[in-house]
């Protein structure tokens, strides 16, 4: 199938073939050929898994990605075809991640705690002199856990916006498009969420310094 070739090396003709292929599959699914939806899953499961992996814990990626495709199927009739299916699906993936954290907040699960290794990690980062040393610190488990700890203190909205804009590097406009929110809303939240992250890190560092003194 030409679409599969295009997925690996997206030339302009390849992308157009993929898009028209998607539209044809969607048309057939909507006319009752439900099994054809598996082709869309095969085509985009890695893309969806990548998005969900950046927003939810690793052990929940499969479950959230599952929800994304079920949601995509149930709202398939609302897909207008004006934007590529991949983009439409990305929006659903991001909003499903948002719902995941909103539901999690209702459960009121405790946020993870930090050990002395996490606290020392910041000092190691600041002491890193070369790029290699800096990257080595970023690769450490403590870095990922400290980030999760900080994100765990933010609301679902702020968490999502911070991840999209500051960590993933989406523009405010792109993030707003994915979330279905206004640009102003995302801009304000992105600024506020970053300030909150900074305050958390500063407080953490201050506590650490107080205990070591």
């Amino acid at each position, binding site marked *: 199938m030409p679409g599969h070739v295009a997925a690996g090396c997206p030339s302009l003709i390849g992308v157009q073939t993929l898009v028209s292929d998607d539209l044809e599959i969607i048309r057939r699914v*909507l*006319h*009752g050929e*439900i*099994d054809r*939806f*598996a082709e869309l*899953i*095969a085509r985009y*499961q*890695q893309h969806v*898994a*990548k998005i*969900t*992996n*950046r927003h939810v814990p*690793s052990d929940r*990626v*499969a479950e959230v*990605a*599952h929800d994304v*495709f*079920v949601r995509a*199927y*149930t709202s398939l*009739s*609302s897909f207008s075809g004006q934007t590529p299916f991949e983009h439409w699906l990305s929006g659903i993936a991001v909003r499903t991640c948002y719902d995941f954290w909103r539901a999690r907040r209702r459960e009121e699960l405790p946020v993870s705690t930090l050990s002395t290794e996490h606290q020392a990690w*910041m*000092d190691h*980062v*600041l*002491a890193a002199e070369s790029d290699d040393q*800096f*990257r080595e*610190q*970023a*690769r*450490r488990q403590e*870095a*990922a856990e*400290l*980030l999760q700890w*900080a994100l765990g203190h933010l609301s679902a909205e702020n968490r999502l916006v911070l*991840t999209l804009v*500051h*960590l*993933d590097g989406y523009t405010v406009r792109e993030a707003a498009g994915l979330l279905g929110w206004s640009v102003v809303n995302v801009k304000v939240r992105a600024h506020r969420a970053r300030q909150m*992250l*900074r305050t958390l*890190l*500063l407080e953490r*560092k*201050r506590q650490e*310094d107080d205990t*070591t003194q």
Partner: protein
Amino acid sequence: MTRLNDENLKKVERALTEAHRLRQEPSLGADWTLRVMRDIRREAAGHGQSMMFPGIDRLVWRTAAVAAVLALVFTGSVLFFTNRDTAELTALLSNEIDVVAPVSE
């Protein structure tokens, strides 16, 4: 021990961003696709009616929008004509009173 000034804070933020980008790629597996398709077939059985008429949702919303506009126009015209009738009736009654008033004196 290093104090967190603005520059240091940016360095920690950069390290956290790097950590975020270094997350391992997930793999979902073949069983996962089968489970998703099983749920989708179940969903299709439950919502077979709406899937048999693709675009029905959009049609319903468009009809609702048109109905709302029509209702607004209808309400507006009723209010407009009722007010005009009321004004005419008031003028007529006041005319009646004017005519009747000298007789009662």
